[in-house]
């Protein structure tokens, strides 16, 4: 079976949870086997039920007080016990903070070759062969796993949701959950309800060409109108025009939205390293020779300050015509 670690976010599933189930289900199909989902911690009943739609045939759900706070050593110990009692050939995790913390521990424990941040299905399974980006997106490597078992971490948003309805059995298991060696002293979570950058389907990003923090109003208006998260280039965050959490690129967040709007961004290689997994890049730049146009799919050579208000109007007009 393929073990999918299905992460919950404070007791709820998000797109990433269903995405990893979808991905595992496709890998299992290639291998002629089924998916064993693993959920750790309490999760809303409806969310659990939702996994059925994405091909999870068997789910092991463990609830235990020792599962909070998140301690990677405890989590990998629990997942390893589940794996040992089932016939697991491959493990899949989401390549986010939590997945990246657990997956390598599982790989080391089972001496399973790990391929991280994959964005597609394996080319074949015997042996597992998969293509992944290397050199921060400057090349692709065909990677072969030589061990019997494999571990993959899936780049968030790269596979998407694929329905594959099945009927799912949910079981618990008698398992040793050691006490965490981590104590939380303080927690600070944004409750503004804004879409987190790494999950957003649409991202509107501003660079130094925006000229200053006082010009961000129209950018934010456009973003909120289309339901996008906002991002920025490194100098913009360094200057304090925008919060550091918005910085994307090699030294910031790495994202893969459906559309990335690069407004007044030159398109430096270090910037592209963080956004080149986007499905579409839309560039607006006053300089027709800006490197961003080599990476972009669509674009306008022009002044972002003039164009943003026009984009807002055009979008409203388009939506009005639709209704």
């Amino acid at each position, binding site marked *: 079976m393929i073990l999918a670690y299905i992460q919950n976010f404070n007791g709820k599933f998000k797109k990433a949870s269903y995405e990893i189930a979808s991905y595992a289900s496709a890998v299992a199909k290639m291998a002629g086997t089924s998916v064993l989902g693993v959920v750790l911690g309490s999760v809303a009943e409806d969310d659990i039920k939702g996994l059925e739609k994405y091909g999870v045939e068997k789910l092991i759900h463990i609830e235990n007080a020792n599962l909070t706070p998140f301690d990677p050593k405890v989590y990998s110990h629990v997942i390893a016990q589940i794996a040992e009692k089932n016939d697991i050939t491959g493990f899949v995790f989401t390549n986010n903070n939590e997945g990246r913390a657990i997956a390598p521990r599982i790989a080391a424990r089972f001496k399973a070759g790990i391929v991280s941040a994959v964005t597609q299905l394996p080319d074949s399974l015997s042996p597992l062969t998969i293509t992944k980006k290397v050199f921060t997106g400057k090349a692709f490597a065909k990677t072969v796993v030589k061990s019997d078992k494999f571990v993959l971490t899936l780049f968030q948003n790269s596979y998407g949701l694929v329905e594959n309805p099945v009927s799912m059995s949910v079981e618990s298991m008698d398992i040793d959950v050691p006490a965490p060696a981590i104590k939380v002293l303080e927690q600070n979570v944004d409750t503004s309800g804004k879409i987190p950058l790494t999950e957003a389907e649409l991202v509107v990003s501003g660079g130094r060409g925006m000229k200053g923090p006082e010009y961000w109003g129209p950018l934010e208006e456009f973003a909120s109108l289309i339901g996008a998260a906002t991002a920025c280039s490194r100098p913009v965050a360094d200057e304090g025009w925008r919060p550091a959490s918005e910085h994307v690129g090699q030294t910031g967040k790495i994202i893969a939205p459906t559309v990335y709007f690069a407004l007044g961004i030159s398109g430096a290689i270090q910037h592209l390293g963080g956004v080149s997994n986007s499905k579409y890049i839309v560039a607006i730049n006053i300089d027709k020779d800006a490197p961003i146009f080599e990476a972009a799919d669509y*674009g306008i050579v022009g002044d972002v300050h003039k164009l943003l208000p026009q984009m807002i109007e055009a979008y409203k007009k388009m939506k009005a015509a639709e209704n």
Partner: protein
Amino acid sequence: MKILVLISNVPDTTTKVKFKDNEFDKTGVQWIINPWDELALTRALELKKAAAGKIEKVAVAMVAEKDGEPTIRKALAMGADEAIRVDTKPKDSYSVAAELAEALKDQDFDLILVGLESSDYNGLSVGAMLAELMGINSVSAVSGIDLDGDKLIVKREIDGGYEKLDVQMPFVAVVQKGIAIVPLIPNMRGIMQAKRKPINVVAAQNIEPLVEMVEYELPKPKPPVKLVETAEELINLLHIEAKVL
């Protein structure tokens, strides 16, 4: 307290990547400390400086053949006290982690810092793997480390925010954005001193890799950008052609 920082030797991030005979072509390449590792080391040295006497030493470790030594010297020039080099070519995350686990068996580091990923093979795995092989704790997504008395306070990024943690030592911290802002630049004195600092070369166990990269490809040239004149055309293209708005 003793801190170890794992460093890897990577091509300068502006290198034009080329391949020859299905291997990375090293001709003319400048080698640097992997940027995340450099920031991790910077933070370790900042802590040592700030907490006089609390941190006995900051060491670095690298799995590399002799040609990795200039990069190790850079780390020593930044201020690391000593270095360990496991003498073998790094092959995959597992073999690197397993070589390090063996080399560190009789050492007593309280904190091991590892950068989020190396900018060459983007494996993202050595830190947590090493922790598992050593049987110790690990924390990932670490964006800050502070000393509070004798205690380390670890800042970890979580969904939509962060938390501050007290983690039982020894542990591995996989660090990312925020751990330090700008890398420490070695000064002349540091560079001179680095020449006399010890690099302990440890024989490798020749652990077999579990993963192999068999073929490389450069990204295909993408179709040229579709340029339009007006905002309205752009929005309509995204709506009708790309179907994303």
